[in-house]
């Protein structure tokens, strides 16, 4: 591990990386439901941004979109099936002494687009318009995705708790 690759990255990009890494990896983990996948997605997304960093106007928006798309690719791959199995059988402890709450697992098991809407709306604070653009759909679709997600979560929680 020498500075080989590092020399290719401008100070501006490193600053960008530093600023956005924490939120990005959190987003990727929330979307993928897995720390490992989230970290992979984050690294790949930053690599993708780095390649175009000088040429894109809004790297933050580009990064966000890249993370969502990449998380979706992972989702399409069989990764998700494995993750689903793992979540059901061996929940990853968030940290010693802290509970990986069931609700979080339920969110992780939502269909991907619903999950993007849930994470975007309730964690990232994205607007419906932003979500529609990210997902390439109309705002009405975002609404219905959100409503389906809530319905699903409510029924599954209800089965457990209420």
């Amino acid at each position, binding site marked *: 591990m020498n500075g080989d*690759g590092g020399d290719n990255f401008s100070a501006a990009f490193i600053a960008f*990386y530093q600023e956005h890494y924490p939120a990005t990896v959190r987003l990727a983990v929330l979307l993928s439901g897995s720390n490992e996948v989230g970290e992979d997605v984050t690294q790949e997304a930053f690599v993708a941004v780095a390649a175009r960093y000088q040429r894109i106007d809004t790297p933050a928006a580009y990064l966000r979109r890249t993370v969502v798309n990449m998380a979706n690719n992972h989702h399409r791959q069989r990764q998700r099936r494995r993750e689903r199995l793992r979540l059901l059988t061996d929940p990853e402890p968030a940290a010693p002494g802290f509970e*990986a709450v069931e609700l979080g697992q339920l969110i992780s098991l939502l269909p991907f687009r619903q999950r993007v809407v849930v994470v975007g709306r309730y964690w990232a604070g994205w607007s419906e318009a932003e979500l529609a653009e990210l997902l390439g759909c109309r705002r009405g679709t975002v609404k219905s995705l959100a409503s389906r997600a809530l319905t699903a979560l409510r029924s599954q929680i209800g089965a457990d708790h209420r």
Partner: protein
Amino acid sequence: MSHDDHDLEERIRANLRDRARWVPLRNPSRPARRPELAPSTGRRAGRAAAAGLLAAAGIFAAVLLVPHAPRPTTVQVGRRPSPTTSPPPAARTTSTSTTSTTAPPPTSTTTSTPGACTSHDLALTFTAESPAAGSVLGHFYLSNRSSQPCTLDGYATLGAVGPNGNAVGLTTHPGGTSLTAGRAARVALAPGQSASFSAEWNEIDSTCPSITTIDVIPPNATGALSTPNNAQPPVGTSFDPCGSPRPVIDVSPLAPTSASSTSTTS
């Protein structure tokens, strides 16, 4: 029913916030970790570039870490104070410093505003009282001991360690009781200023393992501030229930602490 919807939405928010808080941010501080993984999940060029990226980030992380000496945690662990010396009420503070949306967009603009306080930036002070038999109300004060302003936004997460060093499972629940209610808002801390939150839990079941240390993870931070291991149990007791389900610790959002740290309202 709309009330249920609202409740569910709040739970989702809280859950995502808690989970996000626990995402290990290991790359910036431990650049050596990932590249070795390449063979199993490899993506050729991307991986190589990622390694370079990590190397670059590692250099930066090293620079960042230098100013922070080993975690000092000027922690004062108070036994439960006598009734006459109850700490300033922390939970009910209604003043909010800045107007901000509840969840800052993760990947957009932050530039000029101060960043989130890391655990390195903060010092923890802790006191506790007993508002009712079997109930403990802990007050946690986080002061900015760095030379830069930073912000605290939302809820801290708590952890607990038992006498044998094992983590004691618990769930941090934002809001919850009247003693821990409040509206989350971003709190800007100039150097020397502090913010506080309160947490309430039960300690009725004496068969539960005792707690020797409480860890506090500031909002959007990964590191924890701990009450000292060798201190007396900060609240002398345990969290109940200790089996299944896990104890739920209700916490209030971080709110500014008045400069004089004397009581303002009651």
